[in-house]
């Protein structure tokens, strides 16, 4: 499972895209639930974890 393998690089790129999509979807959720604690606070938690994934995965391909 080496970063340098072409197949693994494609896999990383696909994962990076999914992380971006997940982030976008969560931000849309935040917009829909604006001002509602259950949405705002859980969105904040999810975005903190997508940030961690961007650091560990997306950074490798951007």
């Amino acid at each position, binding site marked *: 499972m080496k970063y340098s393998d072409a197949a693994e690089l494609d896999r990383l790129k696909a994962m990076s895209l999914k992380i971006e999509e997940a982030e976008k979807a969560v931000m849309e959720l935040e917009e829909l639930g604006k001002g509602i604690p259950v949405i705002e606070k859980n969105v904040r938690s999810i975005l903190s974890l997508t*940030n*961690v994934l961007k650091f560990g995965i997306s*950074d490798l391909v951007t």
Partner: protein
Amino acid sequence: MESQQRDYWNPWLETLDPARLKQIELKNFRKYVAYAMEHSGLYRQKLAGINPEDIKTMEDVRKLPLTDKEDLRLAQLGEKRSIYGDVLGVDPSEVSDFHQTSGTTGRPVYVPESYESWQWRVEVWSHILWMAGFRETDRVFVPFGYNVYVAFWEGHYAAEKVGCEVVPGGALDTKGRISKMIETRSTALMNTPTYGLHMAEVAGDMGIDPGAIGIRKMLCAGEPLADATRRLLERTWEAEVYDHIGGTEPCAWAAMCKDRNGMHIMEPFFLVEVLDVNDLSTEVGPGELGTVVVTPLGRRSFPLVRFNTKDLARKPMESGCSCGRTSVKIARIEGRTDHLLKIRGVLFTPVAVEECLRDEFPAVAEFEIAVRRTGIMDEVALKVETCEDMGSGACAELRGRIFERLKHRTNLTFGIEVVRPGELPRYQLKASRFKDLREEQK
């Protein structure tokens, strides 16, 4: 679960080409410096005139000023909008966790974490625990009330994240904790090395063999772990004992893999420099001792650029590791620059005493070192506490042997006093076995 069998927490990152790792670190360093300058009053002032986009190489990084603990203290003094002063990097409403340094060297520094920054720290610790073999099948006992000190909180949350079950062992005395470990069939332990030794001692007093309790992995935190002490803990608990190095301000920045030979820098979470102790501006070579400067690259609530940890580390002679991880390793931590003393012309760190006593003198349970000035001479006094009561002849013989071995290993003569079992203090968190009393004597 299949993932539990994997050796790496993040297989791509942990086997990445070192040059690519450095490239990512430099990219994140530029971003981080820009963020710090925009959001932290301290760095707006400290880095004025710097253009982050001009930072392309490690030589460029080294043109930036260092940050000392004193800078952080000063930035938190006086009446400020927030208790965190000018180091806060997010809106105060975003801060979710308060921690502080132990205050060993002065006024404690308050360290704010936003939920995002906290998750970043927990991710670093997840790497550390995974490297040490912590898995879903482990029940991890943490024998402390964690209070405002960060390490065991990080360990607790990361253990949860990697899938372990955590047993918080605060609000019990040591005997209660040993009983609880046995009752819960705990398999892993997170503690300070000092408390690991103390628990083993108390277990012995209870008629329990620590090795039979069932702890098979131990991660040490909170204080430096001499290699001889690590081996002693391994023998006593019949467990694999792992170390890491870090601090409240920068987070844990290096840790041991299964090899237990040196520590991997947690790249690319941190940009770590090991600099010449005297000029703090050139990187030391393989096998050389240097001062560690750390930039954590993902924590926005507490921006910290080129933090001088004052840890003294030796770079390894060889690169690479049999575990397959490609990150740079630190051969060992040899103390702190503020504990590096020149006594009668000889460089001395207290770690040298600990290495000698733990390695060669199993009859010694505890020790304490004090440096005093007598006239114009510095003198080192060492108290050693024995595991069992000894007659005066045996005490004199032990004193003589320790004197000779320490002279051989450090080139210094020690004034040695042997004290009875239980006379020296025991510590749960940061042990304080070294006292430099020369300033107090002035």
